[in-house]
Structure formats: structure tokens, C-alpha cells
């Protein structure tokens, strides 16, 4: 991109303040996630015009409007393909994808698996509140068995999906879980996720204070245990990560489950991008190349 010389200035929290204040319910877990993302970008000193924040639809998907970056508020469940296309066309951008559990694991689950296996270099942050909030409280793919909601008033009879295990099984190269109330820890995970070259997935417990009376801040607080507190835990061990991901109950692990750095990213593996970001490449077919295309048909 042709740009005028800009005198470098330290990047501060105010740079990332959105045009409007979040209209989430007071006390919503998503406030903590927004602050952690802004903090991570400041700590990494990434200029806002180099960041694309792309979401689907839902409470947490309103996120791009509340942070000043190049934002994209797409369709329900479709943030990952949009983000993939954007990253492929301009891989110099830092791409953040934000959304909820319904958006990512319900309607968008197919894309989640495929963006994961493609190792698209982006950070996918799911604000997982185990409920559909913006549609006023229905069962989500991560709602617990037996949970009562407006759509399943007598309790869910379906087992919830395990996002961390699913991401590991689909081949994610960075898998973590955070908790909105653990600001510092979450900020650290986001920084690592942004810096990781490949598909980074963070499932964040971001409690819904209006519709989910089961998985509240109070419920999570005594249960979450940081993997980082266990010096023996090896986040390069996929088997150990899978095993940890299955833990649920009195102890729920949060932190970095897994990371591997030996696989190429999608844009790194694409020969066409060796000539630079697509958006900066010449889009004209040289006359000699055009001639070969026509000669094939003669």
C-alpha cells in the first residue's frame, strides 16, 4: 500500500476505542474479551490499520463495531470464510475473527473445521457463553446436557460439543481456552495467538449474565485452573492436550493446550503469494503469458 511517511507514535489503548460504546448487557463477559484484545494489540504495538477484525452475527459478533480497526461484520456463521478470503488477498494484515458459540459451533461449524485444517494464519476468538443471547436465550451447541432454555424448556437432551477437543482433532496449530474474568491471562493468550503463525483458536468462557444461569462467573471462578500453573504440562504434546481438553467438572483447565510451529500457513504454502500480497500484485496478464493461454486452444 502506498503510504505517506508517518512519524511512529506509541500505540495506546485509546487508539483502539470504537466509534460507539459496546451495547452488551451490563456485566457481560464480552467486555473483558474486548479489553483483553485491545490490550494485546497495544502490547504488541500493532497499528490499527493493519488489523482486520471480522465477525459473524450474535452479541459477541458486534465486537468489530466496538474496536477501531478495519472491521467486518459479516453473516451468521460466515466469519471464517470471509476472513480466509481477506487474509489470502492481503496476508500482511493481522486478522482477528470474533464470534460466539452459536455462530462458530452451530451454523458455522463446517467452516471452523476447514479453516482449522487449512491453517489459515488468523486468531479465532470465540466468546463462548453456552447460550444464544441475541435471540433471547436458546440452547447452543455448547449448552450442557439438561440445561433448560426457551427452546428446550424441559432440558437439553443433546450432549454439548467440546470446542477444544474439536479444534485439536481438526488439526489446529494453536489451541487455548481463556476466561473473561482472567484478564491478564487472557491478554497473554491473545498475544500468543496473534503471534502464532497459523490458525490460533481460543475458546473464551464469556458468561451471559442475562440468559445463562448455569454457567455464571461464580460457577466458573472456582473451577478454572491455569495450565500454565502446572510446570509439567507440555503444550507441544498433542495427546496430553487432547486428554486435558476432556476434563470438565470441578476442574476445568484454561490456558494454552497446544501449539505446533512446524506446519506452513495457508498463505505461506501458496506459490502465487511468493510474489507478494495479492492486493499489491499486478493484475494484468503479461502479453506473452496471454499468448500461451490462447496458443493452447489453437
Amino acid at each position, binding site marked *: *500500500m*502506498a*503510504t*505517506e511517511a*508517518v512519524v511512529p507514535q506509541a500505540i495506546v489503548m485509546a487508539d483502539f476505542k470504537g*466509534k*460507539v460504546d459496546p*451495547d452488551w448487557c451490563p456485566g457481560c463477559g464480552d467486555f473483558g474479551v474486548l479489553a483483553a484484545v485491545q490490550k494485546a494489540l497495544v502490547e504488541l504495538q500493532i*497499528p*490499527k*490499520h493493519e488489523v*482486520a477484525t*471480522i465477525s459473524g*452475527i450474535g452479541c459477541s459478533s*458486534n465486537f*468489530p*463495531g466496538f474496536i477501531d*480497526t*478495519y*472491521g*467486518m*461484520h*459479516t*453473516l451468521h456463521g*460466515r466469519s471464517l*470464510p*470471509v*476472513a*480466509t*478470503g*481477506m*487474509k*489470502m*488477498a*492481503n496476508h500482511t*494484515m493481522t486478522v482477528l475473527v470474533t464470534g460466539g458459540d452459536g455462530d462458530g459451533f452451530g451454523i458455522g461449524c*463446517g*467452516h471452523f*473445521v*476447514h479453516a482449522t485444517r487449512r491453517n489459515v494464519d488468523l486468531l479465532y476468538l470465540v466468546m463462548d457463553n453456552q447460550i444464544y443471547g441475541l435471540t433471547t436465550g436458546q440452547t447452543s451447541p455448547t449448552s450442557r446436557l439438561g440445561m433448560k432454555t426457551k427452546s428446550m424448556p424441559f432440558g437439553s437432551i443433546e450432549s454439548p460439543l467440546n470446542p477444544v477437543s474439536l479444534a485439536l482433532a481438526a488439526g489446529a496449530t494453536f489451541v487455548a481456552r481463556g476466561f473473561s474474568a482472567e484478564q491478564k491471562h487472557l491478554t497473554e493468550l491473545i498475544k500468543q495467538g496473534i503471534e502464532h503463525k497459523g490458525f490460533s483458536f481460543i475458546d473464551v468462557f464469556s458468561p451471559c449474565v442475562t440468559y445463562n444461569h448455569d454457567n455464571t462467573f461464580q460457577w466458573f471462578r472456582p473451577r478454572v485452573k491455569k495450565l500454565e500453573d502446572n510446570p509439567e504440562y507440555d503444550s507441544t504434546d498433542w495427546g496430553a492436550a487432547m486428554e486435558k481438553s476432556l476434563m470438565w467438572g470441578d476442574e476445568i483447565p484454561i490456558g494454552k493446550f497446544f501449539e505446533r510451529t512446524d506446519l506452513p500457513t495457508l498463505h505461506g504454502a*501458496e*506459490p*502465487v*503469494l511468493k*510474489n507478494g500480497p*495479492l*492486493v499489491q*500484485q*499486478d*493484475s*494484468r*496478464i503479461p*502479453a506473452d*503469458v*496471454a499468448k*500461451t*493461454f*490462447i496458443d493452447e*486452444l*489453437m
Partner: protein
Amino acid sequence: MRQSFSVGIGGAAGQGVATPGDIFAKIFSRRGLHLNAYNAYQSIIRGGHTFLTVRTGPDKIATTDGKLDLLIPLNQDTMERHMRLLSAGSACLYNADLIKPGTPADGVQLCPIPVSKLADISRNKVAQNTLAIGAGLSMMGIGFPALESVLEEQFRKKEKAVIDENVNLARAGYDYATQNFKPFAWPLPMTDTRYAVLSGNAAMAMGGAAAGVKFYCAYPMSPSTGVLHWMAEHARKANIMVRQVEDEIGVINMTIGAAHAGVRAMCATSGGGFALMSEGLGLSAQAEIPIVVIDCQRAGPSTGVPTKTEQGDLWQMLGAAFGDYPRVIGAPLDIADSFKMIPEIFNITDRFQCPGIVLCDLLLSEGRLSVDPKELDFHPPVDRGELITSNGSNGHEAYKRYKITESGVSPRVIPGVPGYTHTVSSDEHDEDGVLISDEYTNSVKRRAMMEKRMRKENGIAAAVPPPQLLGPANADVTLIGWGSTYGVIDEACELLREAGISANHLPIRWLVPLHGDAIVDLLKGARRTIIVENNFSGQFARYLRSETSFVPDGNIRKYDGEPFLPHHIVEAVKEQLAGKTKLSVPAHEIMV
């Protein structure tokens, strides 16, 4: 009547019908002959029945016509299905060891080839095909060297022995025919022109490359997959990123993501895949991100007949995605036009920041046409519209992505440029991108944004020319078609004129914007108007009526999966002129 010569080659899928077709096409086009090829096939990889027709001649060949001069049946089934298409002067070349001829019409030459005597059939499974190509060319009066050079190219990756074996086999067939069969009365002429032979799918892919497409993605779906194949094969030479995506929902959204980042992005599918894309089409419109989607129509609804043609997706395109928004829909008239239309529609979608749809069909997608290479212009005019690619020297904090303007077009910035950060959205939004779908709901702003977007329709209408009437004024009959029926109607008009019925033709190339007033103006003096289309309900007739109140005198429709042949239209016009019916549905006589 246009002088032409048609070869039909039929067999089971997997028997190698395509190769002889390609070889004949190459030889004809290198003689400076025009050609048009259509492959009638089934959704089966091995077995079933495939029937390829190549029609050639010195003048433009706009369609196949169902008549055969040479039939090459590769199995008994083909002999039985198509022998009846042969009439006096034509010939049938077949493997005498395996195939029994039926009873031909008078004057049809039966040409049995003693394949096991001329070839070692234990070594070469497609010996009969190669022998028949050689024999056929001899009878057409084409010298052997033309075939020799094509075979050498065909097998260039193989060792010399393989090339020699095939050349010798072809020569054996050629010599055998020279000695034993009667040549055709009309030896194929030669001209100085040389043509490229290509499918509509290759044409659209190349048109994309010419338009500067940098990102293409797709999910395989017949009959659109050829676009993906061309793109994938040529991606590295053309510097286009090509991705195969998990489904068409992913496809359109990935296309939108790439387009938003600032490159021209395109995708192709067929009706079923398009149905999955429709919500994404609305996102393109609402977020004002230009994309081009190609829909290669096949016979529907649902899975329908995947290998058969139809013009049945028009209303899906008109109604795709909910809400009102500006869109542009073009239907290329032939394979050369399939190339040309892509850069044109990109210029419109870029200027007006809206989705563009190219409505093609199997007939064009998978058919083959000879095209003057000069028509394949890889440096067409490119207009990216109001696109901000640099931050210049001004302050931009007040940048409004959806600024309300008279044209409805708001300057678009490529993400990454400092000073222009903003959010684009599928939700309704204010000029600066802030959502007005939730806390900030505002009926005045909503109305203003709707009107801003819809004002772009005026600009689009001015950017697209109205259709034109072809042929004599004051004709007895005016035939109206859209998209791929252009060629067959053109030839039908010619045949009608030869039969003493003057006919003219109104081909519709742009469906949206339609230019309804211009169409009504053109048609108001017409003596008898007939709409010709490849679907059951008269989708275009209904559309034209809804836009203009115009009702034609008659309709000719076909929905059996096969394209119109010129005589179908000629006979239908005659029966309508005789007052026998107002709706003709011609029966297809070639059984595939």
C-alpha cells in the same frame, strides 16, 4: 443455407469419445473452419451413453443442427440410437468386428472397418477410435499430415514408440478408407484464418484472468467445474490464487473477503450451489463489496439432471437474497461472449460496488466454439471505480465508508491504508459504518441508506446498453431469446427467411438492468412476437411481462434437458403462424 459438415461420435462413458472429438476439432479449426461442438452425456463415469457432435464449415457455426454427415458409433448402442439421423450422402464408420449395422436410409454409406486386421487390438484398446479418425479424414478430403501433427501433440508426453504406433494406426485407417470407401461429395474447404477452440467455462475463466481476477474459489459442481479446472491449471502462470472450498456458502463468503481486501474476486457454481450462496449475495450488496458470481445453469429443480442444459435459474437470480438491492445480471450470448462479458461485468460491479451475476448454461459452459483469437482480448478496459489505495497527504479521520452521495456510490478504501479504519457490515448501518440495527435504530437513516444504495441502479442502467433488434425490420415474426439461445435463433431466422418467412431476432444479453422501455419500443411494431427459451414456465416471458406488461403472441419452450436445434424453432414458428398453437414444445429427436 450455411454449408456445414457434422460428425457424431458416440459410445459409453470411458470409451474415449472426447479424444476423437478434440482431434477433429483441432484439425477443422487449423483448416480455418469454424466449428461448434456439443457433448450430450450422462452423470456416469463409466458406461451409459455419450454422444458428441462436431459441426464445422467455412462460415460461423452458431449451433449444432442435429443432422449428421458422419456417424462413428463406438458401440452397438450408439449404432442403434443414432443410425436414423443419417440421410443420403452421409456415412457410418464402425468396427466391423463388434458392431452390426442397422438398416440405413437410402444413400447412406456403411463403412465397416476390419479393426482386428488393421490393428493389434490386444495392445491398443482404443484402436478402433484411431482407425476411425484416420478413415473419416480421408473421406472428408483432408490430407494425412494434418492428423499426424495433431497426434504427435496429443501424445507428446509419451515415448516415441507410442506416437509412432498411433500415427501408423491412423494411417492404416486413412489408407483403408481411401481404398475402400467413397469420399464425401463435399470435401472440407480450407481458409487462411485460424481459430481458437474453447468451451464457455474456459472462456469465462480466461475472461476472469483478463479482467484481473486475483482470487477465484469454487466447490465442484457440474456444469461449472470447468471454470475451476482452467483456473487451477493456469493459476501459477496467471498469478491467481485458486481455492477449492468446503461448500458454496464458504465460496461466496471467501470471495467477498478477498474482494473486500481489494482484489477482483470471482466464483462459479450451478443452481444448487447458487441457492447456498444467496445470503452471501445479500452481504455483497449490503456491505457494498463487488463480486462476480457465475451460474452455469443445469436442468433443475434440486439435483435435477446434472449433465443437461436449461435456462431455469432466471427467477432464482432475480430473487436471490432477501431485501431490495442493486444487482447486475448478464447472460452471455455465446462462448466468445462468455469471455467478453467477464471484464465488462467487473467494471460495472466495481463502479457500483454491487454483486454481478453471469447467467450461463451447460450448453455454453461445456460446448465448444471456434473463436477468432483476436476476440480474446487479455487487455480489456479496466475500471475499478472509486477506490482509495493510498492515504495521500490529507487527514481522513472523518472518512465515511457509506457516505451518502448523489450517485449512491461511496468511495471504497482498501483495508490497510492508514487513517481510514471503519467497519463494513451486513447489518444496516450509518454513513460511517456504525450499525443502525440495534441501539441506534433510526428510520430516517435507514431510509436514506436504502435510497443511497438503490440510486446506484440509475448508474448501472446507464452503463449497460439496451438490446438491439437483429435482422430485417417489419419481419413476419420477431423471435426473442436470452443468453445461449442466440446462436440457434440466429440460424433459425436464416432458415425461416430461406423458407420465405422473414424473421428478426431480439437477443437479450443483460437481464438486469433490462431496459424494458427500450424493449417495448422495439417490439411495438412487430407483427408477431415469439419468446424462445429453454425452460417450462417461460421465465423470461414472465419477467418481461412483470417489468413491462408486454405479452408475446407465442412462446417456444423446451425443458427436456437438451438444447434447441434450429429446425425445432423453424417448425414451431410455422405452426404458430398457421394458428395451430401459441405454445410450442419441440420434441428432441436425438436420444441420449
